[in-house]
């Protein structure tokens, strides 16, 4: 991991203007993605995990959205400063995206193979048709679509949900991107299909060596696939680090709460322990640490209300947490502290 970062985001902030005020969807986040790694971004709905990656591809509708600040260096260029035309050359070629809902992300009136071929043709218009066609079939085979030759001539409505998501993945990796962004790739699928699609993502990563950003709210998926993980809350990163470390010894009370709220299959738990309260409004965010109204650690201490905690080193290499009192969690072990596999069955 000492290698140079493939993508390095600094101080990214995205706002949305609404009738009720400005929504700070992403508020000054910084992180790196290294070549070939899988980075998980977890957080609840509205924590800014999707928005932060959509901003990279210029997919934030502007207005009402606005990228308020930040840089995103990718291959020596700042993605946030590119012209729409330059950005288009990156999209689908060097940086590709797998969307959440495969049922609606494929165009119903175009054949699946055509849509994959289009991705290639858009970036390499001089590629001969027969080569593109055979590449499409290869891609479909790689993502585990049976009869890829025939299937590529079918329309999306002839594909099941899992097959469509496979096709979306094939489309995303068509030009061998060096960065693949998967935005909740399994949320719209049922559990058995989820497992298959995750398997496909794994295979694809082994084949293409693309760095992957996996956005999800499913900690089980993170444990299964990711090397490192970022935990986001109310538009900020609250904890970052290696998956094992974070699952075993979380150093932010929000992460502690998240892990506590998961069932553990090897134990007989009568009740789950949810995090009290509900996610904050992003228009009127709590002052200081946005998590303090729900935090068990604050105990009324004024510092939590007054100062925004910085991400700072916690125990363990590369482990960062944004909590004024993370030291008080020293020695805390989550219930997944021993074999982490036990927690992956979510």
């Amino acid at each position, binding site marked *: 991991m000492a290698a140079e970062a493939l993508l390095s985001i600094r101080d990214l902030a995205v706002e949305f203007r609404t009738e009720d005020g400005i929504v700070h969807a992403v508020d000054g986040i910084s992180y790196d993605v290294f070549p070939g790694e899988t980075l998980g971004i977890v957080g609840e709905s509205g924590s800014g995990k999707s928005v932060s990656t959509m901003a990279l591809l210029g997919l934030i509708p502007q207005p009402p959205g606005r990228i308020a600040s930040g840089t995103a260096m990718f291959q020596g260029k700042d993605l946030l400063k590119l012209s729409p035309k330059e950005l288009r050359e990156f*999209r689908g070629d060097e940086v590709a995206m797998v969307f959440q809902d495969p049922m609606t992300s494929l165009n119903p009136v175009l054949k699946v193979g055509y849509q994959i071929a289009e991705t290639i043709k*858009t970036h390499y218009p001089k590629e001969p048709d027969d080569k593109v066609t055979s590449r499409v079939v290869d891609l479909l085979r790689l993502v585990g679509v049976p009869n890829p030759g025939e299937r590529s001539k079918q329309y999306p409505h002839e594909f099941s949900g899992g097959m469509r998501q496979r096709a979306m993945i094939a489309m995303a990796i068509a030009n061998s991107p060096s960065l693949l962004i998967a935005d909740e790739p399994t949320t719209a699928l049922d559990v058995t299909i989820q497992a298959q699609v995750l398997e496909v993502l794994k295979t694809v990563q082994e084949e293409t060596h693309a760095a992957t950003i996996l956005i999800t709210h499913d900690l089980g998926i993170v444990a299964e696939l990711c090397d490192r993980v970022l935990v986001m809350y109310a538009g900020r990163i609250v904890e970052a680090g290696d998956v094992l470390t974070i699952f075993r010894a979380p150093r932010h009370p929000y992460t502690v709460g998240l892990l506590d709220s998961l069932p553990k299959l090897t134990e007989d738990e009568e009740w789950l322990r949810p995090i009290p309260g509900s996610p904050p409004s992003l228009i009127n965010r709590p002052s200081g640490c946005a998590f303090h109204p729900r935090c068990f650690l604050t105990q009324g201490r004024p510092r939590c209300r007054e100062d925004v905690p910085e991400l700072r080193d916690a125990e363990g290499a590369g482990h960062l947490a944004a909590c004024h009192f993370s030291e008080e969690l020293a020695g805390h072990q989550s219930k997944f502290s021993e074999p982490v596999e036990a927690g992956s069955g979510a």
Partner: protein
Amino acid sequence: MTEPTTPLDVRASVVVDPMAVAVPLDLAAAEGMELEARSQWSYARRRFLRHRLAMIGLVGLIIIFGAGALANFVAPYSFDQIDLTYVLHAPTTVGHHVFGTDEIGRDSLSRIIYGIRTSEQVGLTVAVVSTLFGLIVGAIAGYYRGWLDNVIMRITDLILTLPLLVVLLTVAALLGRSSSVWTIVLIIAAFYWTGIARIVRGVFLSLREKEYVEAAKAVGAGDLRIMFRHILPNTLGPIVVTATLAVADAIILEAFLSFLGFGIADPTPSLGKLVSEGQQFPQKWWITVIPGLVLVLIVICVNFVGDGLRDALDPQQRRVRA
């Protein structure tokens, strides 16, 4: 095999029989598979072909427009051939003047057939020209939104608020009485595209927010490709229906202009002109009534086809008519 029947043979034939039955069953299963593989278009085609009124309309249109298109071969006389022995003659089988003749002895049937050709030209070209123009304008407005949309749509609104017939008459009058078919086409199309632009804009406004559009963007597709490759095919249903109905509207508008004397110049016949010619001779009903009926028939047929298309292309409607 030549041995007399034994119980064994009987059993063998019993075993064979279900196999013989199994073959058509397999075929049926294979057909079932093919049914599943239908595209939305083939569903639409099937629904259209089973729409009784639409098929009646389509057959009617093929006959009428076919006659018009082949006027040179179908019409017994030329449209300007004068036969002074039969002036203002009622329909008769003598001399093949089945629909009678007009005041200078021209054969009504032939004039009607050539009139159909004119109406057909006007109707189809207006539909094509105004649909293409409305499509491009509507697509740009709906896709880009913002000030461009505002400017385009206010212009469209302006044109739509003008009383169509009055403006058409004025423009036609200004351009003079000796208009060619193409002048009339342009005049009508210049006003007609607005309705289509509005419809297309509406559909684009909703479709541009679809996930597959976002996915196409994420893949690096440019605006033009997204508009015309990804969104346009999804809008074809309503566009095809409006374009069809535009044919009927354009034919009526042309007839209206011609009826009032601002239409296509003599001696080219048009249905509207034929109807108006009969005004001077109220007793000679055939001069007015027959082209009028043809006009009505064309419009009814076009509307039947339009209705059938609307039913067939509505994706909400999965029902196949018996």
